[in-house]
Structures are given as C-alpha cells and as structure tokens.
C-alpha cells in the first residue's frame, strides 16, 4: 500500500511525553497504580471469517476475551474488531483494516488485592474472578471515561484510556484510592 507508515518509533531524539508523565500513582501493599506508557497498539478490523493466515496472529473469537499470540496481546473489542498490543507489524489488506493507535490510548496498571474493589467504584460490570478473571477484557466505562479493561494474572488489571481522558481518570483513581 502506498499510504504513509504512521510514526512508530521516534525518528529522532525528540523526547516523547506520555499523557500521564509525572503521575505519582499509588504504591501500597493493597494497591499499585502506575502508567505503562508508550505501548505500541494496533487496531485491527476484519470479518472474522476472512482473516488471512498471513496475518500471523491468532485472534480471540470469544467476546470479551484476550490471548497472547505472536508476541502480542490480542484483545477482542467487537465482532469485527481487535486491539493488538505489542511490537508487531501487521499487513493491511482488502479484508483487514490496520490502524496504528499507539498514542490514542495510554495504559494504567491497577493491581493488588484492592484492585477489584477500587475499580468497582466506577465500573458497573461484574469483576469477580469467576466472571472477569485472567484472559477477560471489556470495553466499558470507568468513572465517566470509556476504557478497555484487561484482566491479567495476579490481580493485575490494565486500564486503557484515551490520552485526553487520562489525567481525569488518573485523578479519579487517586481519589478513589484514599479508601484503600
């Protein structure tokens, strides 16, 4: 394809600044919160029946799940939409729309025994391990921000939030954390 390759890595020494640069986070035995900046993210949209093997990725087909494939985390976002987190080059084709969205969202890690209770303050979905355990993900709202919520092992959640909402959400999480 002739279209331009989106910026992937800093072409030069110009400093990158993440949306939550300077975010103090939370570091406690019950709760750990910090930004994971600059994750490479690729949005992938395709008819699930027309995903070519040449893509080199296994796509989760069960709604609300994610899996690790080809060195990347692949999140189901919708019946024809996935988010690929990881340093992989995906070929665009007639059947597969590929869009670089690395800077679109930043990632906030919320982890620890208090993580579920903290998230429950702002998230209406059931976060119980039997329902939203490792391998689950959801597009939902946390407080008043749209997020992609990703459940990992060891009570670790990744909260993917749009760059413009990141400070609001970080403030909200910091405020919620006073009870934990």
């Amino acid at each position: 394809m002739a279209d331009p390759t989106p910026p992937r890595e800093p072409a030069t020494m110009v400093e990158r600044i993440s949306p939550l640069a300077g975010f103090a986070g939370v570091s406690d035995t019950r709760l750990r919160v910090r930004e994971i900046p600059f994750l490479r993210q690729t949005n992938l949209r395709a008819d699930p029946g027309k995903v070519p093997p040449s893509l080199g990725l296994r796509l989760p087909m069960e709604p609300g799940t994610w899996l690790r494939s080809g060195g990347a985390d692949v999140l189901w976002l919708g019946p024809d939409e996935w988010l690929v987190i990881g340093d992989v080059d995906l070929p665009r084709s007639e059947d597969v729309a590929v869009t670089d969205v690395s800077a679109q969202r930043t990632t906030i890690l919320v982890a620890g025994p208090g993580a579920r209770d903290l998230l429950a303050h702002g998230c209406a979905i059931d976060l119980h391990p039997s329902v939203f355990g490792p391998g689950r993900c959801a597009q939902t709202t946390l407080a008043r921000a749209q997020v992609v919520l990703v459940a990992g092992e060891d009570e670790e959640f990744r909260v993917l939030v749009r760059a413009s909402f990141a400070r609001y959400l970080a403030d909200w999480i910091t405020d919620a954390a006073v009870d934990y």
Partner: protein
Amino acid sequence: MTRRRAGHEGQVLRFTFDGRAYEGRRGDTLASALLAAGVRRVATSVTLGRPRGIFGAWTEEPNAVVQIERPFPEPMVQATTIPLYDGLVASSLSGQGRLSPGPDPARYDATHAHCDVLVVGAGPAGLAAARAAARTGARVVLADDRPEPGGTLPDTAETVEGRPGAEWALAVAAELRALPDVRVLSRTSVIGYYDHNYLVAVERRGEDAVTRERVWRIRARRVVLATGAHERPIVFSGNDLPGVMLASAARAYANRYGVPAGRRAVVFTTGMDDTAYDAARDLAEAGVEIVDIADAREGRLVTAAIGDGDEGLRTVVIGERGEGLGAMTGSREVEADLLLVAGGWNPVVHLFGQAGGELRYDERLGAFVPGDAARAVQAGRNVVVAGAARGATTLAECLADGETAAASTPPTSLATPPSPSGGWGEHVWLVPADDETHHFVDLQRDVTVADLRRATGAGLRSVEHVKRYTTAGTAHDQGKTSGTLTSAIVAQVLGTGIAGLGTTTFRAPYVPVSFATLAGRDRGALHDPVRVTAMHDWHAEHGALFENVGQWKRPWYYPGPGEDMEAAVLRECRAVREATGAMDASTLGKIDVQGPDAAELLDRLYTNLMSSLKVGAIRYGVMCRADGMVFDDGTVIRLAPDRFLVTTTTGNAAAVLDWMEEWLQTEWPGLRVRCTSVTEQWATVALAGPGSRAVLASLAPDLAVDAESFPFMTWRDAEVAGIEARVCRISFSGELAYEINVSWWHGLALWKAVQATGAVTPYGTETMHVLRAEKGYPIIGQDTDGTVTPADLGMGWVVSKSKPDFVGKRSFARADTARPDRRHLVGLLPEDPDALLPEGAQLVACERLPEPPVPMLGHVTSSYRSAALGRTFALALVSGGRDRVGERLHAYTGETLIPVTVTHHVLYDPEGTRRDGRPDTSEGARHDG
C-alpha cells in the same frame, strides 16, 4: 434522671439536645438516650404545633425527626436511627429542617456489587436465608440497616437454637463474614428496587470512616426480601401525645437499650397476636408498672389519651364497647405516663411493591402481604419474600421460611399458623368519636381522621387521591405507620372493603437519602471529565484562559500583561492576518476510513463527491442528516486509494463515527469499509498567516513549501522539528495556513519548537472564531441548529448534482428546502461600527417594536469585533437573507433596537487573494474548528 437497666451501662457519651447537655451510652440511638434522660417532647408537629414524643424505635418513626447541628448540619434525621456518638449536637424540629449553607466536608462515594443472592434484612429470616445460600457456595450480599445483625431479636430477647437471639445473630453474621464470596453490609438500607434485579442501597459507614456514606448499586440473580414488619398504631383521641408509643418500640427500648420508656404503662392491643403481652411482660421486668391492658377481644378500647404540654400523657381513658360501632358504655380513667399501642403488624412490602409485586389483603393479619410475584418475575425480577415480610408471625416460621427462600421459590401465601393463645383478634383501626380532629392517622403530616372524612366527603374514592388531598403518607417516613391505616379508615368511612381499596404506590427511596450521598464523588473537579490535549500544560503556563468545548478544555485566548479579552483577541487576530499565528487544533475529531469501498461510503455520506479526490489531496465536505440539514463538516484527506482520514468538528467526533457505523451496520453491511477513531493518535498545530510558509520552511528544511510544490488542499509527509509529521495545507482563516499533525506523544515538543521560532503568536478559539466569521465560514452548532441546509449557508456548491444518491439528497427535492424565505446565512454590519450585537438577538424590519406578535426575521448567530475590518460585525440567519443584502434591519437587544445593514456573509477578502500568501482567485476551502 437516667434510668438504665443493669447490663446496659456502656461507655458514657456526651451529647446536646435543644441546648441542654445529656449523657448516653455507647450502643444508644439518640432516641434511646433521650428516653433514658427522661426527655418526653422531641418535636413539635408541623401544622398544629402539638408536642410530639418518640413513637417508634427504628425507621418507622414519624415523630422524632431532628436536626443534627454538629459535626455537620443535617436536616430531618430520625432520632431512632442515629447511633449516638460523643459530641453529637441535635435539636428538635417542627416538621422542617435546615440545609447547611456550606458544602458538606464529608466524603461520599458509590460502588457496584454483583451477587447470586441479595438478602435484604438480617433478621432471623434474612440470616437463615443468607446462611443457606452461602452454604451452597453462592455469592451472597446481605444488607441490613441496623448496626448489629438480628433484626428485632435484640428487641424481643427471644432465643434461637438455644442461644440468646442477639448472640445467635452475631455468630451467624460472623460465619457469613468469614466466607470469601459473602459480603455483609450493616447499617445499609436498600432504598430502591429497579428493573432486572438492580437495587440501590446506602451504607452509613460512620462519622469516623474515610467515606461517610456509600451508595451500593447491586445486581442480583435472586433477591430475598426479609424486611420484617412494622407494628401498626390504633387511632383514638390524643393518640399523638408524647408517651403514646408502639408496644414493640417500648419493648425494644427495654430490651435492646435497657431503657424503660415510662413508669406506669397501659397496654392497648387489638389482640392480633400476643406480642403486646410479651411487651408488657418485658416492660414489667424492666421495672415499668403495667396498670391495665385494654384488649379489644374483651371489648375494652382506649378511647382517649389525655395529657398536658411537654410532659405528654397523664391519663388514659378506657371504654367498654357496647353494641354497634362507636357505642361505648362506661369508661375508666387510669393515670399513666406510657401507653403501648399494638394494632397488629404490617409486613414491610415496600421493596416488593417497587419490584412490581402485587399485594394481597390478608383478612387474618389485617394487613397487605406479598401476593402474586408473577408480574415482578416477568419483569426480570427474581424475587422471593421471607419471614415477617411475608406475614409470618412467629420466630420459628421466620427461620424456616428464610431457610428455604434462597434456594427454592416458596409459596407466595402462607399456610395458616396456629392462632395465638387468646385467639385471633379483630381489626381495630379506629376508635371513633364525635370529634375526630385529634385522631391522628399520619403523625408526621398532622393528618387526622377528620381530614380523611373531609376528603371522602369531597368525593374522593381512591387512596391515591386521598393521599394527595390530605398529604397522608407523603412525609419523609413515606407513611410507614400511616399507610395501611389510611386505607383501612377510608374503606371504613366509605363502607367498602379494604382489600379492594388497596394501598398507595410504593416508591423509592425507602428511607430518606441526602443529595450529598447521591452525588458522591461526582462533584467538583471529578464532576465531569476534563479532556486536555498534549499541549495543555504549555497553554496553562502561558496564561491561556480556557473555553469548554464539549468536555475539552481549549485555549480561548492568551491575554498579555494588562490585556483584557478584547485587546488580546484583536492582537491575536492581527498577528494571523499580518504575520503568523499558531493554534492547538488537536481536539478535532479524526477517523481513519479504510477498505475497498471507503470512497463509496464517503460519497454516500458527504453531500459532495469524495471518490474523485486524488491521493495526496484534501477536500472540504459537509454531511447532512436524512432530512437534508447540515450535521457536520470537515476535511477529507486521501491517504491511499482505499484509505482516507476524515476530520470532524470537535464536539461531533463521536457522533460522526456512530453515524458511519450506523449506516454501515444497518443499511450498507455489504460495503467493505472499516472506521477507526484516531482523534487522540494525533496532536495538531495549526500554523496560519502570511508568514506561516517561512516558519514551516525553517522547521522542515527538507520539505518543499513553495506554492507550486505544496499547493492548497494537499498534504505531505515530512519531518518537522525533527518529528515525523503529516502537514496539511488547509485554512480556516482565509490566510495561507498549514496543519501539522504528529503523534500525541510529540505534540508538546512540536508546539514548543513552533514557539521557539520566535515568529509565531499563539492564538485561541476566540480568534479562530473571529477569523473564520470574517470569511463567512459557519461553525456547525453555532451558526446552524439542525434546521439549516448547505444552501441556507450559501454553500450550494458543496451539494453534488451528479451523484446518484447521498444521505439527505431526497430532502433537497422537497419544496420546503427550496422556499425563497428560508433563513440564509448573511453578514450584518451595525450602523454604529462600535456596537457589538448580542449573539441570539432577534432581527426585525421595523424601527419600533409593534405590539406582539412581533414579526421576526431571524437571529444573530455570531458577533465579534474585527481587527481587519476595523469595526464590529455579525453573522445571522435571516429569512430570505440573500435577497435582503443592503437592507436595513434592527437587532433587538432586550432594551433597544440596533440598526444594522445586511451584507454578503463573506466580509473579508471575498476574492480569496490571501490563501497562497499572494494574490490568487480560486475557490476558498476550509475546515471547521
């Protein structure tokens, strides 16, 4: 004069009521502490000004509604439910509290919970239900409004499984708390029951907790309502005096708090069950002299309570019933300071009613009990009712009922339990008299039987109407003691059956909740998300004032030292027209549209042709709704034959993406196109002004920036300030201009590099608005309102005549969209070049306002002071406006009429000579901010 039973001497807590200092004990409520201190009068009734005392012992209390003064003013709080704490300051009220003028300093929040079984109420039935459910491994939430589990067990001092009831309840609660998937919420009132088993509860975590109150939003597969029963009063003359009290309440004060509520007591019971006798026995043990028991089964009724002033009850008059209702033979007067009233029990069916469950009148209980739950279940509410809330009258029944409630669907009506030792009594709601102006039905609202008779006398036949006419049941206790009484007495007065009359509707909240609690943390800075761009901090550090655009904060203008808004904006405008300005344009919506049919989709959604756009080129476009009215505008960039980048207005980014998805998913699923939002992937700096080419050249030495190499409405990939960038040559000011897009991560670096050239003036949205208005470019949503077509805006050229179809096309064939008197976008020049028209001002043709209706021609949509024109100007939508150019109209400011002249909407550089930084005459194009 504290009187306290042995075993109830806890830690001393000091409190103040109505300015007097008292002592209570840990574990007290304000009400029990006041009773222990011998305080009889705790309130003054709202309309009649009568003294009122403590009547109940928990949430049913209608009288003892007080103002908390410290630590934070809180109005209308039931003294019976406030746990006493050291330093509490409260005062009595007369039906109305006072809101604090200051903000509540306490913290409130909300959270969500999900469970298999939600049990409401931790009395015997609720505990049994929760335990049974938990033992199956279910996820259980047990919510109870009291500080300790057990419901009324501590009130009645009954035993369960061979242990004192209170002790048993603590043990069961401890067992439940130890389980990982059980959550026991004490001091938590479930206040509302909504669709699909969604319930809302309020947890009162205490004055010392980080969060004082918490709203729980609970989604449950099954709900067990074990909400118990409230004792029902009986209506007689003077039944509102301090000293008249529910028998169950006096029993609770004696057993739970160790406080005898009086010295000499009379008991008045309808004999519905034997609980009044149990209460009398317990009070006698607590040292209260029981001087008489008037049992309606024996034909003995209390006809009047007589008292004086603040001391309340002095004398109880007991009558012997003769033949016929109200005919009394003989009477006896008894000296007493306490009158226990036991009129039977009302199951607490509020939540069941909210769930849509039907109520059934139970003749035996004389109360409304849960009937058919089918309607509630059909509405997605898996609900069962257990224990006293279902009409169970004994402890054993409640325990057994709870045991089965969690697992199975129990029958909705109870088998008849054994009748009490004295036999089932009769229902006595009212002891009638000639004068019923002191027969109180609703104590909190001062509604009497006389009032109910007046309502039925006025022809009202429905309890809903009687409620609204008399206000019975509308107080903040929601008629917990008065509801069934009102139905029963209205039925009696009308001579109809209570069963057919029914109850009033049960609505949330079950108990009062403060707005601070409901607002939770959604106030102040967290009230609504603030969206910021990558360059936000620079703007703030350089003194920008911000404008709210949707949830975005956009720099509005950058006042220099001593500058007001007008001066700053004029300076910024001059900078762009005469030199170079830079604006943060990152907030524009951006959508990546990919696929073999991408061009086809855009052809169908935009009014103009997009498929003919060449790779590397940019086109301005307008989208209409199906009604042909302008919905959004922006630029379309062709990145590849099958890939476009679409920009939208800041406020419409999500709406445009939704619009595209809606058409793709519902109408055109065959189109092979995918849309992805990339609004925040990019940060954008707009560079505008005759000097912008030189500024760009200095930042991007490898980019050929001359007009021939980089023509208007094209884009180039380039390195700008050492950052990978996409530069678009588009203009929203009519000046030579560029938009430089880089990764959000590099937005601040780019902005700083642009500023570091020293040749660029930062400008904000106000300047952008002035500059675009000078050029007659509309802002969608400011100059349009959903009733404006592209032709109305003078942009007929953007509507394709050749495309077979596009959204809105059919509407342009309507006669209405071709009317000559449609409102057109025009310019207005006030005759006084210094007069600034208010936006929204109506326009009229006449010099003096006639009598209404005034024929109005349109209104001002945008109005500014222009540096370039050296005067004020405005844009307006005016009926047949393009045919009125040169006409004199008047703008009405609300006080005066300002004369204006109608002009073409393009007021500055109509020939478009400034677009290339040198004379040029081709058609201008643009996009919106």
